[in-house]
């Protein structure tokens, strides 16, 4: 398949469908916020969301009723605290019940690797003594066929669609990620289709030989969305908007203020440029 450079709204419309398993990855860096907002604008429903570190954007998608379930390993607002819409969904089933499947980071990373490797499951020396396997039937035990050592086994992750954000693409749609690369490459290669939003398109990526490079022919859509990771950051482009992340705690604590904020800044705007304009030049909620 050849990557198509297209508007984000078109990519979401074509490749993200109701009921799918969707991974929007980013390990506190390069989180695809703009794409998440577009999924909310297009009112996708019944998604099985996957993410190692669900944070504000998944909080928003959960709170807006996009998700039927969540597979994850750490859900919070990094450096700030809890994500309240996620908590409300689990504790009070608002706006709808959320089926959770909880793992650890090492396991989620291995599951994406297995998915990218075409293997049915991942194996790790993990969860020893932990209560997590008691509440997650997908965490099982196998014996090593060579030593007999007991190890944890969990199913591969193969999302219907993975969405990530990166710094740059070239005109063909090849993508370069720099800085903390997280799990993005594995999540893309594990998926049936993949969308990448980028800060900019350049003539030549000039990628260092060992860089985190994703070729255009494993991608379905590349979308140019400047500041598309905001309030997360894009190394070399802009810093994390910590003030936004802190202010989100207050906005999201109550259902009314959350819905009002989402209507005003996400549903009430046409695209990410409109969103950024709506939250103002010193971006912070409120």
């Amino acid at each position, binding site marked *: 398949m050849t990557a198509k450079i297209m508007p984000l709204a078109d990519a979401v419309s074509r490749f993200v469908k109701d009921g799918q398993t969707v991974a929007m990855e980013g*390990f*506190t*860096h390069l989180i695809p916020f703009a794409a998440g907002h577009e999924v909310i604008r297009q009112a996708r429903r019944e998604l099985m969301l996957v993410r*190692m*570190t669900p944070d504000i954007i998944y909080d928003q998608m959960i709170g807006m009723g996009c998700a039927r379930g969540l597979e*994850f*390993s*750490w*859900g*919070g607002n*990094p*450096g700030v605290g*809890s994500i309240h819409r*996620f*908590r409300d969904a*689990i*504790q009070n089933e608002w706006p709808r019940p959320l089926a959770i499947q*909880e*793992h*650890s*980071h*090492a*396991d989620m*990373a*291995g599951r*994406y*690797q297995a998915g990218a490797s075409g293997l049915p499951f991942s194996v*790790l*020396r*993990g*969860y*020893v*003594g*932990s*209560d*997590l396997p008691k*509440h997650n039937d997908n965490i099982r035990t196998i014996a090593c066929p060579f030593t007999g*050592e*007991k190890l944890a086994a969990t199913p591969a992750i193969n999302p219907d669609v993975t969405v990530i954000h990166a710094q740059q693409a070239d005109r063909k749609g090849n993508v370069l990620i720099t*800085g*903390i*690369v*997280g*799990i993005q*490459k*594995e999540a893309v290669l594990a998926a049936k289709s993949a969308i990448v939003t980028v800060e900019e398109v350049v003539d030549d990526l000039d990628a260092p030989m060992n860089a*985190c490079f994703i070729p255009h022919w494993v991608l379905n859509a590349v979308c140019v969305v400047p500041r598309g990771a905001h309030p997360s*950051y894009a*190394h070399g482009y802009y*810093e*994390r908007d*910590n*003030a936004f*992340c*802190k202010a989100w705690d207050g906005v999201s604590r109550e259902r009314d203020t959350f819905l009002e904020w989402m209507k005003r800044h996400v549903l009430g705007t046409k695209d990410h440029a409109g969103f950024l304009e709506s939250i103002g030049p010193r971006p912070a909620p409120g």
Partner: protein
Amino acid sequence: MPMSYTPNEIMTVEAARRLKNGTVCFVGIGLPSAAANLARLTHAPDVVLIYESGTIGAKPDVLPLSIGDGELAEHADTVVSVPEIFRYWLQGGRVDVGFLGAAQVDRFGNINTTVIGGDYAKPKVRLPGAGGAPEIASNAKETWIIIRQTKRSFVAKLDFLTSVGHLDGGDSRARSGAWGAGPTAVITDMGVLAPDPVTRELTLVAIHPGITIEEARANTGWDLRIAPDLATTAVPAEHELAALRELQEKTAKAHGTSAVSE
């Protein structure tokens, strides 16, 4: 006359002192990160700090607000992917000390960061969850826990066992298949606890100046054992406090927060 200090400061300084130069430390965000970087900025310039976001040899100028701040990548020796950090570096046995925080800890140093109250499906409070801790706790050569000591955090029974410590005590951890020695120190704002060599029950082995045994007991949800040769922690030295405060002021300025928040 020594400088005055807060309970948080003596906890952080005491934890930092334990980290030897050259140690490879897998660092949790928050209190562990503050202590580990204080060690790096004082007596242990060659301590190797690894964060689960994939940064190896991180040397942040200010404390990261999140585990994946650009600050960690900027000055690191190298930045690797998340599967690589967990598989090669942690599971591969390269980590000397796993340095963790917790919401709850029990008498055997097991950790809860998942749910408080109610049951798992319908908890009173849903916490962020496991993150990297279950495998840090079971694969590092040893584990340290840094946590404020209260009856809510030091509980007789965890609401959920997220990450393994000494499990049910005795040799139960060794029999469980976990690698490494498990928790060898729990550093709190009241003192330091270490596992009994046989029962593996956490025992108060050092107490901070000005804290009484009664206070430590009153802030523990089980019948706290006191080591017969209970030591008193050395008060933070002037240069340690100065380095910690400078780090926290720089951090607060960078993140736009007040210096008193950690």
